[in-house]
């Protein structure tokens, strides 16, 4: 009795405390009082795209909160939407007219409007794409390396005057039309008429952008997309449908997106998204949920109904420090490639959510599969074969010293010198990554290679990744599914364009493969990397990719581990149905707020 009374008392006291403080917790961004809640039948709950407290909704900030960050396009929209399934570009603010190695032409949709009624114009486009010319630290400065100029002309678009934008490839710069396409679907257009006066108002122009970046832009933001922010707290972000969204008429045949509200709850632990999904409190979640098949009975579904459940998008790899003995030895690297039990990695570390990996770093499925060559893979690639690994090592003079119980003690090389124990650096606490490392260590040791786990705090991990201060490191390069794949993956792994010695920073090829000027330097690699983006002939492109992939397989500068779904999500059809799936592919397997995946919002239906 006493316990119960106390519990009741406790609750009432807590309530009083809450009462005292409530209101501080949440920022309401418009006058409307939403405390009555959001009707379930009008609300879509999505999760997994925002971790941590939402701090800023400023599209000019470096890392704003969902849905302003990354390539989410429900509030601010890009010119084009990339469809990861077809590899095509679908229109949003603009329509792709042509693309070649010199320029990309896009026509702005004349109907496009900001939420304050002003039209979206070439001024807005130029504002964001060329902001780097005025402010070096702008988030889009790097675009200038790829686009030298944006030409504007007037055209007639179905009887309406429209602006045509020609993005000229920066030949003197990176000369890379592929990345220009990345930029056109990645950079979201922001209202220049909102930001220009703010920038101009600041006296010290060297400080202007950084001052503006500090603004949160969280109250009645001027957006062009179908939803806008109405409220947020550390527990959730709430978007409301803009019923006057220009695209409803212009792009979606006059229909409105089905959910009136989109709520993104912010949980502190991965499994809470899973629980919410199974309870039907969450409709879709971009979180890693192990053993998804167990959740099917709770109505949790995926793109494929069966294994591998998701469409792969990225390849996590173990980067090898190519400047450090014995990874300087190609034979050693290749032996490592043969030593890995790729199947175990896939099954145990990623719950089997991917098809079997094929040698090389061109994916054997999806858009890039057209560049994949199975013959080469069989001929040059490394697959799991511990005996082969041992054979290569023996041939190269390495010897594994075993302990009495048969387990590995150490290794010596041809000169009888002890090979140092190698450590795989990996952030501690990233459970799936930790699992990958544990399994690879076991594989290596079974093949007689002296490798150990080297878990570190995430802070140290990020610090040492670019400086090359490690033997082996787990890393997922080119992690976003973009039009420039698989080129961007090769670039991230093999490019010696910015080669820097260990201790200095490199943002790609952190394993420091192919050191310019060194004995084994292969100029072919960099020249292929440079030329591939400019090739428009498919057959020539195929040959170039094939050549590059063979070099990769022969040299094995890094160890690809498995295919991993990217931009994946699982959904529950308890409240909303008609999610796109393999059998109902009206939209690609992209998040409902990314690229062409946004079509999903117009096609959802309420469950009966």
């Amino acid at each position, binding site marked *: 009795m*006493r*316990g119960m009374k*106390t*519990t009741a*008392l*406790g*609750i009432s*006291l*807590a*309530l009083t*405390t*809450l*009462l005292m*403080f*409530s*209101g*501080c*917790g*949440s920022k309401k961004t418009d006058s409307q*009082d939403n*405390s009555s*809640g959001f009707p379930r039948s009008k*609300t879509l*709950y999505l999760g997994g795209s925002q971790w*941590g*407290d939402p*701090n*800023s909704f400023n599209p000019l*900030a*470096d*890392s704003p909160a969902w849905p302003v960050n990354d390539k989410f396009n429900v509030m601010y929209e890009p010119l084009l939407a990339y469809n990861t399934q077809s590899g095509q570009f679908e229109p949003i603010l603009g329509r792709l007219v042509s693309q070649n190695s010199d320029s990309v032409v896009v026509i702005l949709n004349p109907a496009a409007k900001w939420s304050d009624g002003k039209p979206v114009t070439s001024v807005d486009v130029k504002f964001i794409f060329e902001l780097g010319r005025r402010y*070096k*630290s702008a988030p889009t*400065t*790097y675009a200038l*390396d790829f686009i030298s100029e944006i030409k504007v002309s007037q055209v007639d678009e179905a009887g309406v005057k429209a602006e045509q934008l020609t993005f000229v490839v920066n030949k003197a710069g990176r000369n890379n039309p592929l990345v220009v396409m990345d930029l056109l679907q990645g950079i979201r257009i922001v209202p220049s008429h909102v930001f220009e006066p703010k920038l101009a108002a600041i006296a*010290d122009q060297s400080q202007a952008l950084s001052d503006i*970046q500090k*603004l949160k832009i969280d109250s009645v933001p001027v957006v062009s997309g179908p939803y806008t922010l109405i409220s947020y707290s550390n*527990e*959730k972000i709430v978007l409301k449908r803009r019923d006057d969204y220009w695209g409803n008429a212009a792009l979606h045949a006059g229909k409105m997106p089905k959910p009136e509200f989109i709520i993104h*709850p912010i949980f*502190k*632990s991965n499994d*809470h998204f899973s*629980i*919410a999904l199974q*309870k039907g*409190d969450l409709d879709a979640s971009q979180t890693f949920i192990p053993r998804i098949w167990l959740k099917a009975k709770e109505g949790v579904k995926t793109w494929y109904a069966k294994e591998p459940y998701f469409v792969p998008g990225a390849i996590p790899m173990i980067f090898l420090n190519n400047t450090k003995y014995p990874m300087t030895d190609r034979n050693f690297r290749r032996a490592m490639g043969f030593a890995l039990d790729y199947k175990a990695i896939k099954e145990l570390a990623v719950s089997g959510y991917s098809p079997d990996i094929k040698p090389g770093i061109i994916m054997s499925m999806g858009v890039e599969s057209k560049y994949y060559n199975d013959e080469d893979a069989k001929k040059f690639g490394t697959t799991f074969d511990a005996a082969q690994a041992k054979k290569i090592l023996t041939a190269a003079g390495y010897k594994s010293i075993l302990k009495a119980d048969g387990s590995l003690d150490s290794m010596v090389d041809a000169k009888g010198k002890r090979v140092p124990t190698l450590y795989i650096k990996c952030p501690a606490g990233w459970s799936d990554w930790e699992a990958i490392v544990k399994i690879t260590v076991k594989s290596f040791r079974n093949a007689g290679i002296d490798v150990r786990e080297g878990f570190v705090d995430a*802070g*140290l991990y*990020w*610090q040492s*990744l*670019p400086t090359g201060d490690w033997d082996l490191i787990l890393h997922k390069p080119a*992690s976003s599914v973009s039009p420039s794949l698989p080129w961007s993956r090769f670039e*991230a792994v093999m490019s010696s364009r*910015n080669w820097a010695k260990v201790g200095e*920073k490199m*943002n790609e090829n952190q394993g420091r493969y192919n050191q310019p000027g060194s004995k084994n330097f292969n100029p072919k690699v960099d020249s292929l990397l440079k030329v591939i983006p400019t090739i428009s002939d498919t057959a020539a492109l195929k040959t170039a990719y094939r050549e590059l992939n063979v070099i990769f397989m022969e040299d094995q500068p890094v160890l690809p581990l498995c295919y991993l779904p990217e931009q994946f999500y699982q959904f529950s059809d308890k409240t909303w149905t008609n999610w796109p799936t393999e059998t109902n592919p009206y939209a690609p397997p992209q998040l409902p707020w990314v690229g062409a995946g946004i079509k999903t919002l117009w096609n959802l239906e309420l469950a009966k």
Partner: protein
Amino acid sequence: MFKNNPTLRYISHRAAWYFLTFLVAVTINFFLPRLGTANPVDIIMGKVGTGLDTEAAKDKEESYLKEFGLVEVNDQGELLRDEAGKPVKTSNIKQFGRYLVMCFQGDLGTSFLNYPKKVTEIIKDALPWTLALQIPTIIFGWIVGNLLGALAAYRRGVFDRIFFPVALAISSIPFFAFGMLLVYVFAINLGWFPAMGGYAGDLIPSFSLTFFKSAAYFYVLPFLSIFLILAGGQAIGMRSMGIYELGTDYIKCAKWFGIKENKVLMYLFRNAMLPQLTGLALSLGSMIGGALITEMIFSYPGLGMAILTAVQGNDYPLIQGCTLLVTVSVLIANFTVDILIGFLDPRVRAGNQMGGK
């Protein structure tokens, strides 16, 4: 003047020591995070900088260093550079000086990881939840635990023989494991209570009955997960204190004098409670760690996770802000309890007086 007033002397003496502790703690809190090798800007660059060219990444990095006040700038706001062209780092001492000045102005700085959010703003958002969960739990856990413990000590017999091992067992369970079990049984299997969150997913905090009802419903499991184990632990402590007090002369005498039973129980409770009170104030600091786990297990809003991510990301201003908060509240709690005990227990005051401190 203090010489004539032992109470004032006692208070001022305690206050002086607490203030000194505070100063040392603030200094340690400032320098400790900076001893590590990880650099906050590297962590941010790890996320922002991928795919950037070396030059672009360097520019970005320098603009962060400048923004966070980690490097020296000249009057024009340009970076000072050494011969090798690298920015000149601001010394820790100089940063400390700036930090102290800012603290006095009530500004705890801007968080690095939650840029551009102010530290005070982060604390203001999260603290009410932490307080709302922790304070009632601690107070009621303490009161209930101590009452039951005192009762067990006084009554002994069957009540004690059942109560004591149960309390002992409950307080042996790691409380996060207990929280997990609560989730497993009451949220997942039985579905009586929500598994996570601070209020229903379709609500926004406001002054409405709906919100408070929802908050109360979501409060139950996190509350129980801390309350039961806290109460169990307190009860055990109180029971043995109580049995100890029960054997003291004054309790025997009170019985000989025929003092009423509830009065004797009150004597017992009050005197046995004093050390328990000190113990509670002392353990407040370690409860922060506990709060963090509760927040993790229940996805409950609060300050704990903010501290964890801050420390992991070397977010100096946020670490400093949070540790300052913890330091101040633990010291204030201890100081209050010290003073309170000074008033409640004349032995303490007398001891202080006689010790000549």
